[in-house]
């Protein structure tokens, strides 16, 4: 029987970010009984904005996600696109905005770690990374601290892990004074017949825990990521997660080696809300129940409660369904790489998520409903007002001075000071480093290459969300074609303010419509993405920032073109509209 450990109060429900309606609905899913404290934690993690996309799902469904080359669209850890020769590119972009504002180095580092895991969980070896960064005004007292910490953190993780960072953006604007944006992108290469998903299959099979040990890191982090900031932010600090790129690099090698043994049926990284989200996702996608025994979970701290283990966001961990006959072989791979490997549960045919700790059943939940019946809102929105026409501001200053001012402005100046802190060359396959229109990386010995770029101009989106989002997609398309690549597909990271404000929601809706229209028009499918809402401090929201990252294919990397003029005395042509 369930242990009625702690009586659930209204304050607890509110502290877990559940509305009265959401709580009532949850109770109805468990036969009207009161949940245990662990169950409350689980549902709050599953049903917060970050995991459930409850404000955005309705609109995301309208985006074009299919195309001739798309193997896997949104829904898995990352999107997968065929690049020929039996190979696929696997990529995604994800935000780590709130954690980076609280602890810039670790927040950015774990953001990079998370996106790399998303890519290699699918069986792909990461070959390129990008980062789209936005900070407040350069002379705002917090900006310098955030910039130096975030850039060092992005580099600290990616450089040690060993993925070349080949592109990104850095921009400053007062509207990011209270909320910086850290959007990390990663891409990897997999064999089209070697792609792994989180869909569990088979009853009574071992569920295995892989990677680093569990601590109290980030307990409640996913809930925090969906909360608006206020002055009590200091109190939210002890939940900071620390990244360990060395362990992640070992985890990458161990996972790829493990996958090659044929031992893996399904695999899922433990990201936001760690064990909870990964287990529920694996079970729900495979129409199976999951039985977990928390006494088997490798912990690095003593006396961890079931609640803490289920919500821990310790990094560099994975969950897998294993072919039992391969157990010894699989375990040997993890021992070789110095990582934990523990059978922590099994798949069942009950469709229940059952969790035991110290001999007591601490949770018994319907697994499909946790995901499928997450709340979904049609938030009220108002159409954006059309922008005022620009004043006819004839510039009568000195053109050369004006140009120098633009080039010297933080947003116009070279970003070399940032990307020289990133290893842009590791793996030895980089054909074009940052500084041009798109980074280019060779992906096979025959010379095939991929191009990567990330773009958006938030002030355009602020002025006109529909046109601004279209423009971002068009810029991505141009940056890819400008290096000689054929655009393949995109991933997006939609950073907005509080969706409960109708004018913010209106901007979000219009931006999605613009994004969808541009991508449909260009046959440029969106294969993965991420939404980050509530980027707002004391009522001031960020500029609407739908960051778009695109991937293009060059059949012959050697035929790429760069931005530099090659020789003197050549004609300069202006093309386009």
């Amino acid at each position, binding site marked *: 029987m369930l242990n009625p450990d702690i009586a659930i109060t209204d304050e607890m429900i509110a502290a877990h970010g559940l509305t009265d309606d959401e709580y009532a609905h949850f109770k109805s899913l468990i036969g009207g009984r009161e949940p245990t404290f662990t169950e409350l934690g689980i549902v709050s993690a599953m049903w917060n904005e970050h995991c459930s996309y409850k404000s955005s799902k309705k609109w995301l469904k309208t985006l074009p996600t299919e195309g001739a080359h798309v193997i896997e669209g949104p829904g898995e850890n990352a999107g997968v696109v065929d690049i020929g020769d039996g190979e696929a590119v696997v990529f995604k972009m994800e935000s780590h905005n709130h954690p980076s504002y609280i602890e810039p180095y670790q927040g950015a580092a774990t953001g990079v770690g998370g996106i790399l895991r998303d890519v290699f969980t699918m069986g792909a070896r990461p070959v390129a990374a990008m980062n789209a960064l936005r900070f407040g005004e350069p002379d705002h007292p917090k900006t310098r601290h955030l910039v130096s910490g975030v850039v*060092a953190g992005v*580099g*600290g993780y990616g*450089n*040690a*892990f*060993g993925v070349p960072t080949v592109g990104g953006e850095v921009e400053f604007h007062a509207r990011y004074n209270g909320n910086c944006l850290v959007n990390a992108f990663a891409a990897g290469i997999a064999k089209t017949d070697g792609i792994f998903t989180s869909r569990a299959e088979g009853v009574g099979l071992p569920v295995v825990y892989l990677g680093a040990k569990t601590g109290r890191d980030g307990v409640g982090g996913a809930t925090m990521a969906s909360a608006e900031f206020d002055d009590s932010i200091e109190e939210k600090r002890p939940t900071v997660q620390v990244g*360990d*790129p*060395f*362990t992640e*690099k*070992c985890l990458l090698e161990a996972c790829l080696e493990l996958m090659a043994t044929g031992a893996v049926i399904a695999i899922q990284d433990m990201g936001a809300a760690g064990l909870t989200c990964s287990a529920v996702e694996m079970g729900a996608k495979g129409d199976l129940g999951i039985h977990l025994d928390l006494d088997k979970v490798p912990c690095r701290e003593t006396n961890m409660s079931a609640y803490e283990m289920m919500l821990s966001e310790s990094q560099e961990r994975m969950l897998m369904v294993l072919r039992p006959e391969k157990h010894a072989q699989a375990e040997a791979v993890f021992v*070789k*790489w*110095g990582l934990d490997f523990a059978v922590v549960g099994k798949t069942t045919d009950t469709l229940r998520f059952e969790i035991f700790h110290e001999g007591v059943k601490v949770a018994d939940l319907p697994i499909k409903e946790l995901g499928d019946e997450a709340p979904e809102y049609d938030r009220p929105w108002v159409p954006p007002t059309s922008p005022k026409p620009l004043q006819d501001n004839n510039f009568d200053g000195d053109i050369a001075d004006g140009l120098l001012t633009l080039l010297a402005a933080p947003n116009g100046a070279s970003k070399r000071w940032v*990307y*020289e*802190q*990133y*290893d*842009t*060359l*590791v*793996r*030895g*396959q980089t*054909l074009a480093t940052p500084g041009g229109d798109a980074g280019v990386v*060779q992906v096979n010995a025959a*010379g095939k290459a991929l191009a990567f770029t990330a773009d958006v101009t938030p002030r355009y989106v602020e002025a006109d969300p529909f046109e601004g989002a279209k423009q971002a997609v068009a810029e991505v398309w141009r940056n890819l074609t400008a290096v000689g690549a054929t655009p393949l597909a995109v991933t997006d990271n939609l950073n907005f303010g509080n969706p409960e404000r109708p004018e913010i929601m209106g901007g979000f809706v219009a931006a999605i419509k613009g994004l969808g229209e541009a991508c449909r028009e260009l046959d440029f499918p969106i294969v993965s993405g991420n939404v980050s809402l509530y980027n707002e401090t004391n009522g001031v929201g960020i500029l609407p920032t739908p960051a778009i990252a695109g991937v293009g294919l060059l059949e012959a*990397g*050697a035929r790429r073109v760069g931005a530099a003029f090659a020789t003197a005395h050549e004609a300069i042509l202006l093309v386009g509209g």
Partner: protein
Amino acid sequence: MAVSVIQFPGSNRDQDMLDAMAHTTGKAPHDVWHADTALPTDTQAIVLPGGFSYGDYLRCGAIAARAPIMADVIKAAERGMPVLGVCNGFQILIEAGLLPGALMRNASLRFVCKSVDLRVESTRSAFMSGFTKGDVWSCPVAHGDGNYVCTPDMLKNLQDDDCIAVTYAGGSNPNGSVADIAGITNKAGNVLGMMPHPENIALPHQPSQTGAKLFEGLLNLAA
């Protein structure tokens, strides 16, 4: 001609090194795991690649320098076998006591990845035999801890014994190293450690192929 490339947990330019070596010497090198206790018996040269062995935790290269395979690497080095350490490999050679001095945090305290100019100061190492003293070439660096430090006495010994192999030329010192040192050898000349990455300028698709000369230098060993 058999070269052994040692792979430590956290090495990340191991594949770059294997590729560059295979391409230039025409023979696939051995990929040797750090926990092995003996090098393949046909080994004629050893390379420690770049990366972040053990995350560069504690001190760069410190934990890797004590790995099981290193006892055999040290023995081979003492017998005169050519040993090259690049970046993290250089840090490991220093921690293992095969080269003098220390590599500390870059003076800027930042990781730096860019191309710098290198000048060849000595060609005593087998790896440098394809170069001429005074050659200047452009080569990428990518490191956070490449600031070579040593005592004035040690520096004098390095100079007197012709142990400075490459320096950063033309004011391109990216890390604050004493005397612009980018790479050094031991007194015998068979052990070379350097921070820059010749393996990233060796293959046809890379910006130049100058780095390939380091590996071509090994072809004489086959004779």
